């Protein structure tokens, strides 16, 4: 029996209904609903709401700061997990304190911390700035959004603990963490919906990407439950990828397209491609992520089932995953060309965040194509490529999702806090450490995975020493990600106190501004300013002659 198409049909229907309701409202119940939601967001919380500031931008700042801290913790957990994959007793001394993690537990905890802690919090935090800005209004409740950042962080902490011990005192820890996260997510969705209901101008498509990313998450879960596919392996695999395609892909696409345009100073390259990104992400199945949907299964408290897809499911699933290449390529190309404007190079590469977005967009297409092959193989039941699935999942997390969300956060954070990061050079060093560590470290690990797969296929009895050496090299290289995330955190925190104020920003990103600019042919003011000229630079037209030249006399 087919599971994929009926579930997606319900999902698409729910999305369309949600869009109509958002555009048309609730008719005569509009004012009542708005008043009730506002009451629930602020007054109903009682004295708790007075603990936080309601200053504009405070919510976005808090979410991004939490996300940065989680990025650092996630990198440490993942690094330790990679290390334990070749040295399983490395942390045995911690057993004296009752903590004896294995590689799988640390990697699982690292995935929770990275996905929901770092990427999730930075995307939601950036969205809390982007959606009100695009709507031409203020966030409905800054206080509530600031307050629920604590609830979300608590939920991620519980999920990280649950990755080590799923059940404590008879309580399913991961389900408890998910319940708290649903509560926080509901508050954020209501806050954003209330914000767009007060919009003073039509919202640009990146804003809709963020909104659909937020509401797509709960609607994906509801669709799977309504279709009854939640008990099957294919249904569980589907909900995992639907959440990946909506909350993570749409959310990141929305905030990063905004940040790429505002950060580079170039208008968004193509409105049609943004539309394709939104439409394509909702109708297709995003292939990125693990072949094992155990994260979604654990979070929803379901019984795990084997993936045994029917022929119809295999065909429709493979087709819809291949279709996901359209929004992936549309988004990646749109972001890359927007960063460059009409020139061949990124003009303000010194701006923190631009380099991260550039790298994430470059890495997206090859990793998405690789994931497509691995997922199609897994859905068909062959499982020949399952050996590289986990590392490919890590690569998509650390080389695509993390740079894109981090780059956006680095652009948005100064906008909401009023101060830039302390040092541009430290930010650049952190970028090289993080990106180099993630790409090189995980590439070495994939090479080890491929070696293992070849050995299994050839029925070799003795493990190869090359595999272990590659795993050692991979984990040590990944340590650059830990260092990079620490540098980013200290840079951001110091910038809050001593960073250059945005209002004091000078026109040029370099301190060496030319006194004169020789104008040899017609050019735009933008190009002149991009060359480092300031408002005081003297533009000198240089006369040119059309006469034929002659040999230089010596």
């Amino acid at each position, binding site marked *: 029996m087919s599971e994929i198409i009926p579930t997606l049909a319900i999902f698409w229907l729910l999305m369309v209904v949600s869009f109509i309701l958002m555009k048309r409202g609730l008719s005569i119940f509009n004012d009542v609903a708005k008043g009730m939601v506002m009451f629930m967001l602020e007054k109903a919380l009682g004295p708790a709401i007075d603990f936080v500031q309601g200053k504009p931008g405070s919510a976005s700042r808090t979410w991004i700061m939490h996300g940065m801290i989680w990025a650092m913790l996630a990198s440490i957990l993942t690094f330790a997990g990679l290390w334990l994959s070749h040295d399983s007793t490395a942390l045995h001394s911690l057993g004296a304190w009752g903590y004896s993690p294995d590689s799988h537990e640390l990697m699982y905890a690292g995935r929770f911390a990275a996905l929901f802690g770092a990427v999730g919090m930075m995307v939601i935090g950036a969205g809390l700035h982007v959606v009100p800005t695009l709507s031409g209004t203020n966030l409905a409740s800054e206080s509530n959004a600031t307050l629920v950042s604590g609830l979300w962080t608590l939920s991620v902490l519980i999920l990280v603990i649950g990755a080590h011990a799923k059940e404590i005192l008879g309580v399913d820890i991961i389900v408890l963490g998910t319940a708290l996260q649903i509560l926080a997510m509901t508050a954020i969705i209501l806050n954003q919906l209330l914000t767009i209901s007060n919009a003073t101008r039509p919202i640009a498509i990146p804003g809709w990407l963020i909104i659909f990313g937020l509401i797509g998450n709960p609607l994906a879960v509801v669709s799977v439950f309504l279709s009854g596919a939640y008990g099957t392996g294919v249904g569980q695999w589907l909900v995992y990828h639907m959440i990946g395609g909506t909350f993570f892909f749409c959310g990141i696409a929305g905030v990063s397209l905004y940040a790429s345009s505002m950060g580079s100073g170039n208008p968004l390259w193509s409105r049609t491609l943004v539309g394709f990104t939104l439409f394509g992400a909702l109708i297709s199945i995003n292939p990125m992520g693990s072949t094992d949907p155990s994260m979604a299964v654990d979070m929803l408290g379901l019984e795990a089932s084997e993936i045994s897809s029917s022929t119809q499911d295999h065909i429709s699933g493979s087709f819809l995953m291949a279709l996901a290449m359209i929004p992936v390529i549309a988004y990646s190309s749109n972001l890359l060309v927007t960063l460059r404007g009409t020139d061949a190079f990124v003009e303000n590469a010194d701006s923190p965040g631009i380099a991260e977005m550039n790298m994430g967009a470059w890495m997206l297409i090859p990793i998405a194509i690789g994931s497509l092959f691995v997922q199609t193989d897994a859905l068909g039941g062959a499982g020949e490529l399952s050996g590289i699935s986990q590392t490919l999942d890590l690569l998509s997390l650390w080389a695509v999702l993390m740079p894109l969300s981090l780059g956006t956060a680095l652009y948005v954070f100064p906008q909401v806090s009023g101060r830039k990061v302390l040092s541009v050079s430290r930010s650049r060093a952190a970028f090289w450490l993080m990106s180099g560590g993630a790409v090189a470290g995980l590439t070495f690990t994939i090479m080890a995975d491929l070696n293992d797969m070849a050995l299994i296929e050839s029925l070799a009895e003795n493990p190869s020493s090359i595999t272990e050496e590659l795993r050692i090299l991979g984990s040590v290289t990944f340590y650059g990600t830990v260092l990079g995330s620490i540098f980013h955190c*200290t840079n951001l925190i110091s910038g*809050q106190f001593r960073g250059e104020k945005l209002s004091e920003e000078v026109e040029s990103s370099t301190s060496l501004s030319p006194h004169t600019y020789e104008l040899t042919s017609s050019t735009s003011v933008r190009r002149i300013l991009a060359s480092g000229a300031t408002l005081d630079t003297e533009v000198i037209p240089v006369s040119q002659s059309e006469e034929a030249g002659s040999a230089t006399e010596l």
Partner: protein
Amino acid sequence: MSDQGSSQITEFIQGEKEPQSSSVVLALGVVASLSFLLLYGILYPGREMPVVSELLPMFEGVFDSGIWFFLLGAMLGIFAIIGTILTEATSE
């Protein structure tokens, strides 16, 4: 006069600027310490280092994997972040 004087004293005591030569002094201190440790080994060959030789056996079997070298670096980073928050918040 008194207000101006007190602000000047605060600036004077706190040291607003960081001369480049201060790092040279620090490096010199580290090099001197290492040199004296080496000298100890030359002057008293075969003798264990006082205090250090008594402390190190306590950690045998604890930090017996290379991962601890990296985790100590990560811990330093975490303390650096906490230190940055505290010092930046109190410096003003």
